[in-house]
Structures are given as structure tokens and as C-alpha cells.
């Protein structure tokens, strides 16, 4: 009978061990539960934010961005020149109240000979589209910038609907529209840094990039010979990714 009692308590302890194992499995399952949904909701929020940003820059008048660096300092390295009275956000005060950021960006791009984001329409006429976009992005992307995200905004000539090898970026002369200083993203060591697509380089650098694009129609001006390339169907693209660049 003593053996029978030992067998019974052995069964009981075995049952307890199995239960403990089951309980630990439940704890693991509960801890993991919802992680994918959480990730989906986070990216939905990020994409919704980027969509809002993209829609807003079609309406925000450049004149209203002239105070951007007056209230919030533009002293980070990647906001270089934005405080400049002649070249930065304050210089946007001279534009008419009806000109939006994308209006000016299109004007900046529609150079008669070679399309480029250089803050000029042609060679001599200032059209601070790139600066206006940098000022708008500096403010509107602030929640993500402060959370450690990096953004890159570009205009590309589309070739496919994929993020990779999506087309030729429009030439950017001087500072790019980004808060990233990653040399891989900026294309510092690339053969032609002015024609580097920051979004594609960020993907190639291994960042988890989220991207939003919208059609962007630009009509280049006629050149000295009176010829024009005709309307160009471009893509306006905003990319964002979490980064530990400044850590």
C-alpha cells in the first residue's frame, strides 16, 4: 500500500509539472500576442502621418513658413542654412500668399534646360522650392524627428511601382531635403551624389523604410531655342525610417 501511495503522489507531482509547463506556454503566447498587430498599427499611423504631411504641403503657403526658424531653432547640422535671412526660411516671406510649397517646388524643378532642385528657376531667378520644402518638413516631421526617425524627400522620374530602382531622381544641387547625415543615404561617396536617390540608398543601407508617393506633374519652361520637353509625369516621394544615427 505504501508503494501505491508513492505512485499517487508521483502522479500528482507529474501533473503539477505538466501544468506548470502549460502555464509557461500560455504566458509566452500571451506576451507575444498582438505584436504583429501592434507593428501594423504603428506603420499605419506612420503612413497616415506621412499622407497628411504630403497632402498638407500642397496647401501650406510658403509665406507662412518664414517664421519657422524664428520660433524653433534650426541649429542642427542637417538644417544648415535654414536660419539664413537671405537663403533660409526667413527669405520665404517675400512670396505671394497664394503660392504653396508644391507650387514653388514645381517652379524650382521646371528649369528650361535641365530639371534640378536648386532653389532657382533657370539660372538666375530665385524659386526657393527646395528651401520651402525643407522648412515645411523640418516642422511637420518634428514628432518623428524627435523620436529618432529620419526622413528623405525627393522627386523622381518613375520607371516602376517598386521602391527599389524606382527611377531617376531629379538632380538636387546643394543640401538635400532630409534630416539624415548618413553618408550612404546622402550618396556622399557615390559617383554622382546629386543624382542619388536617398530612399533607395536607405533601403540598400538596410533601414526599414516606409514610403509614400504621389503623382507630381511638372511642365518645364521653354529653353533659349523655344523648345520644351513637354509635361513630365514625376513622383513626389517621402520616405521615413527609424535610425540610431544620433545615438
Amino acid at each position, binding site marked *: *500500500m*505504501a508503494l*501505491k*501511495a508513492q505512485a*499517487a*503522489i*508521483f*502522479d*500528482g*507531482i507529474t*501533473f*503539477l509539472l*505538466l*501544468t*506548470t509547463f*502549460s*502555464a509557461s506556454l*500560455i*504566458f509566452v*503566447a*500571451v506576451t507575444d*500576442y*498582438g505584436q504583429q*498587430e*501592434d507593428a501594423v*498599427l504603428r506603420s*499605419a*499611423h506612420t503612413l*497616415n*502621418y506621412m*499622407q*497628411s*504631411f*504630403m*497632402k*498638407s504641403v*500642397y*496647401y*501650406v*503657403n510658403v*509665406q*507662412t*513658413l518664414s*517664421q*519657422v*526658424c*524664428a*520660433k*524653433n531653432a534650426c541649429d542642427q547640422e542637417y538644417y544648415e542654412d535654414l536660419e539664413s535671412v537671405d537663403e533660409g526660411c526667413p527669405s520665404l516671406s517675400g512670396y505671394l*500668399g*497664394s503660392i*504653396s510649397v508644391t507650387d514653388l517646388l514645381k517652379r524650382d524643378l521646371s528649369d528650361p534646360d535641365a530639371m534640378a532642385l536648386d532653389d532657382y528657376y533657370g539660372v538666375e531667378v530665385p524659386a526657393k522650392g527646395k528651401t520651402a520644402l525643407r522648412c*515645411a518638413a523640418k*516642422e*511637420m516631421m*518634428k*514628432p518623428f524627428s*524627435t523620436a529618432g526617425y529620419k526622413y528623405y524627400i525627393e522627386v523622381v522620374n518613375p520607371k516602376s511601382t517598386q521602391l527599389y530602382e524606382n527611377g531617376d531622381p531629379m538632380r538636387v544641387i546643394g543640401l538635400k531635403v532630409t534630416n539624415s547625415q548618413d553618408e550612404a543615404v546622402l550618396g556622399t561617396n557615390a559617383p554622382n551624389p546629386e543624382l542619388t536617390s536617398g530612399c533607395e540608398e536607405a533601403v540598400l543601407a538596410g533601414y526599414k523604410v516606409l514610403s509614400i508617393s504621389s503623382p507630381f506633374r511638372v511642365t518645364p519652361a521653354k529653353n533659349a531655342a523655344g523648345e520644351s520637353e513637354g509635361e513630365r509625369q514625376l513622383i513626389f516621394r517621402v520616405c521615413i525610417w527609424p535610425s540610431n544615427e544620433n545615438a
Partner: protein
Amino acid sequence: MRAFVGPLGDDFPSIFPIIAGILLFLGTLAYGAGVVDEKNAYFNTRKATLGIAYILTQKGTITPMEFQSLCNTQATEYARSKGVKFHAALVPQCDGIEFEEEFKESIGFESDYGWCDSSDETGGPYDYAEVEGKNPAVMTYPIAVPCPDENSYTKGLGLVVVTVWR
């Protein structure tokens, strides 16, 4: 036969680990179900926040009058259909965006450009200090608003701040 104390008496010590095992298992199940319910509720709250924000930021620009109209009709209806309570505000940021890093500062903000909540549907007004303890979802989106004042022709920087809770 000396050690025999009856059929139940002999198995008596084994009852303790069995009961402990059953209690542990049932307790874990109850805890797990509670955590899953809580996570699902918060996911639904966040989904509702995204939905309301999308309603209010659908155009990229909004006037205080349009905001009030959308908020009082579509957003309120949407919140009711999802079984959540909400507060939304249109905040002008004409001189540059002042992002509230402390989310509690955004809850219940009564902006000059317009705000609304679901209090008419659910019997408010709300005690927003109490709402802070209900794990609300707060989301902020950029939008173009009339600047420098609400009757201006020019559009400047603004924010739509949406807070949703159960």
C-alpha cells in the same frame, strides 16, 4: 497492512499538487484571457483613433468651420459605431509646430480653431484628468489651416489632435 490508512488516506498527499496544478492552470488561463482582452481593446481604440484622424485630415487642409462640421457629424458617428469616446482639436501652429512630448498635455485641449468630443452622445462633459488614467490613444497629424488667424486667406501649419478612450 500497517501503513494502510484507507483508499483516500493513502492518496491524500497527492491531492495537494493536483489542486495546486489545477489552480495554477485556471489562474494562468484567466490572466491570459484578461491580457488578450486588454490588448484587443487597446488595438480597437488605436484603430478608432486612426479612423477618426483620417476623417478629419482627409483633404490636407481644413477651415475651423469645416472641422467643426466634420467633427460633429462624421467623427461622432464613427466613434459611436466603434463604441469609443473621443476628443479632437484643430490646433493652429502658424509660427512653427510645438509638439507636446508629454501626451497628457494634448488631452481635452480646447483650441480657438475648434474642438469637439463625443460628450453629447455619451453624457459628458468629461473629466479629462480621469481620462488620462484610462489609457487613451493620442494621435497628432499635420494639416494646413488658415494662418495667421482663422479668417486668413493664407494657409499655414496646424495640427489635428485626436484622443480616443473607452
